[in-house]
């Protein structure tokens, strides 16, 4: 994919297998064990043996190295291994990396994985008060002495500006929470299975980093998730109908920062996702009206609204109204607010299920599903389609 010319990746690779552990608040096993379990499940789902895997991709934040995971799962020689940086912004990019490897013949079967004990181990929401004096540490370090120490607080700064620019109140963020929890309530794999939410309950939840309330923040989860990527031709011979990778893109904006993008001209938007969206639409010739399901990374509710606006589903400031109208099935697994926080990887698995026709909240005729990764950071996106 390129910013200026259409790429030739679309239609050459597909997601052929998905696998996950249970989603919990205390897994009781190591992050490596979770990763291995998810990878075995994904390979079984695809109908492939570990020995057939020659590529592995994960997040730079993952604690299970590709070489160690390979040993634990019984994968032998590897011809491709890669990692993507920037936290949850990597989610769709790991699939892009795998697709690129498959399309160029660098590898035949690539597994993407992410596993952590994010709830029982190191919680991102607990905040970090210290960083190394690297360029990355310095970039985050500008905000630490003033007490802006958590992901919620970084997003809240953008969210406040968004509300101000559009003359909205923090209660509008509740639309996203209510929508996600409605789907989670009917998803047995979701942490919030059987527990829908009302706008009033959202508005009554306590402040975390005003204007963000508790129910504007996704949950924290222990678990693992893996995806098997191979060529479309090979995928057609495997157990499930392929989820075709029609387009995959990464994006970073002007003056991009890692969660602290406060210095760019307009902070009430997500230009990094604009970069991704422009590539996805141009590469496929599709637009918002061609998408039947959208899985938008929901670490914090305001960024779902801003993603809808950035991708052209609605105009600036109209995101909450758009969600309320309920015209686009959104985060049909319950999202990270409702199902689990797996750094966006569980959203990709949901997109695959929608295309296979096996989702618990199945959308009839789902042929094109848009998936995004974490925003507010350098991000990524996928347009997945049904085969044929």
């Amino acid at each position, binding site marked *: 994919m390129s910013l200026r010319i259409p790429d030739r990746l679309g239609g050459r690779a597909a997601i052929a297998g998905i696998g996950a552990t249970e989603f919990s608040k205390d897994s009781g096993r190591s992050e490596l064990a979770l990763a291995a379990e998810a990878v075995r499940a994904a390979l079984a789902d695809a109908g492939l043996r570990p020995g057939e895997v020659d590529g592995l991709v994960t997040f730079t934040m993952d604690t299970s190295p590709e070489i160690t995971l390979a040993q634990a799962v019984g994968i032998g020689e590897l011809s491709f291994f890669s990692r993507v940086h920037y936290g949850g912004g990597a989610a769709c990019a790991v699939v892009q990396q795998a697709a690129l490897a498959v399309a160029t013949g660098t590898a035949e079967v690539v597994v993407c994985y992410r596993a952590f004990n994010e709830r029982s181990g190191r919680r991102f929401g607990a905040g970090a008060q210290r960083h190394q004096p690297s360029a990355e540490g*310095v970039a985050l370090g500008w905000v630490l002495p003033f007490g802006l120490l958590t992901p919620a607080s970084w997003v809240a700064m953008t969210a406040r500006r968004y509300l101000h620019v559009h003359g909205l109140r923090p209660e509008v963020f509740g639309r996203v929470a209510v929508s996600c929890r409605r789907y989670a309530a009917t998803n047995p794999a979701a942490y919030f299975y059987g527990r829908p939410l009302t706008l009033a309950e959202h508005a009554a939840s306590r402040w975390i980093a005003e204007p963000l309330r508790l129910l504007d923040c996704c949950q924290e989860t222990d678990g693992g998730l893996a995806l098997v990527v191979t060529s479309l031709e090979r995928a057609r011979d495997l157990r499930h109908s392929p989820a075709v990778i029609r387009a995959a893109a990464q994006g970073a904006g002007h003056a991009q920062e890692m969660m602290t993008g406060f210095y760019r001209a307009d902070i009430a938007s997500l230009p990094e996702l604009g970069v991704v969206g422009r590539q996805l639409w141009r590469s496929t010739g599709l637009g918002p009206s061609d998408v039947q399901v959208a899985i938008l990374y929901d670490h914090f509710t305001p960024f779902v609204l801003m993603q809808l606006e950035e991708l052209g589903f609605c105009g600036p400031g109209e995101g909450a109204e758009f969600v309320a109208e309920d015209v686009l099935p959104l985060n049909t697994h319950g999202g990270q607010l409702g199902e689990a926080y797996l750094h966006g990887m569980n959203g990709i698995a949901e997109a695959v299920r929608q295309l296979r026709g096996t989702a618990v909240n199945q959308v009839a005729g789902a042929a094109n599903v848009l998936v995004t990764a974490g925003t507010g950071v350098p991000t990524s996106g996928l347009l997945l389609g049904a085969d044929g």
Partner: protein
Amino acid sequence: MSSDLDRRLRAYQGRPAACGTGKDPVNAPMIRHWCEAIGDRNPAWAGKEPLAPPAMLQVWTMAGLSGGPPVDPPGGPSGSPPPSALPELTALLAESGCTAVVATDCEQEYLRPLRPGEVITFESVIESVSPRKKTRLGHGHFITTVMEIRADGIPAGRHRFRVLRYAPGAPPEKPAGPRPERPRPVVNRDNAGFWDGVAERRLLIQRCTACGRLRFPWLPGCAACGSPHWTTVESAGTGTVHSYVVMHHPPFPAFDPPYAVGLIELAEGVRMISNVVGVEPGRITVGMPVRLEFLSAGEGQLLPVFRAVEPGRRMLPPMTVPITRTLIVAGALASRDFQDVHHDPEAARAKGAPDIFMNILTTNGLVGRYIGENFGPRAVIEKMAIRLGVPNYPGDTLTLTGTVAEDGDPREVTVTGVNALGRHVSAAVVLREAGR
């Protein structure tokens, strides 16, 4: 049991507290000593016909080192003064464990300036005794007295004074001393220049010498033109709140939630994250004007923070006062306050403080000095009310800042003094700018 005590305490309300004549008339030597201790160089308090600084009002009524009852008014109009109920009240509170005392509030009204030679007489009553309260120092009772002060028999001022008599925690509930430090800035060769500037109380912005673009955060190259060459410009320190967050959860030891973090857009056009101070978090608005000041955040660490200015008010420049042992001791003695906690470290430690600390009369004097430095010798203070927060210990630095209403005569001024422990004093002052 406690309610029985409360009932007995309430009975002291309205009873006499002190009545008498100042041990010395208003006099130039005491004025000079006091001005030297406080560092007050207001010319109105010097020269051949000095006036007494209004903040000295209480000084003329102090008993001094010998203590004892105030001098009876010699042939005063009321004959022999009524006996004070304070010793009895103090003894009753001491019985209940409240053996320590600390002043918390001082509200003064000045009806006219005092001049050398005038004889001070005063009468005070116990205005209120609070039920038992839980405070940072321990359980205790607030006692408020109101004193009418005359000079040569003519009303000159009113002095409302509140002390906390408390049971010192043994051991104290929280160890005294500075709160845990904030996270330090992350500094490397690329941004050291910024923090070096902050250490000199200068907020430096990088400026590309090739294209002239200002930039923040600091980077070794220009995002607009790519040039590695740059210089710095010093920010004028004014800006507006571009966005803000009020932090509630999770708690961090160095911060007291809810606290406000702002994205400040400087007048020069760049933005930075900082704290918005001087306004309740709930009253911050996007677009609110702010002004730079520097906060001492632990050993050798200054931080640039921004004080919000509410509509209709303007900022006063800050005044920084190093809290030396000399200032604390000289201020206490010049105000005739010989309480041992203000000059004797051993005695202070025995009462649960880590060291000696500044007395309220010195703080009052520093607020008065700040007003004088901002409004000049012609300004006349009509009222000054201060409330103390955390103590001033030796080695700290007190920074006084203030805002003043744009309009009105008399004008209303608010002053805040912060040190490394937090807010030391909040003051509300009413003055006439050209009253002399």
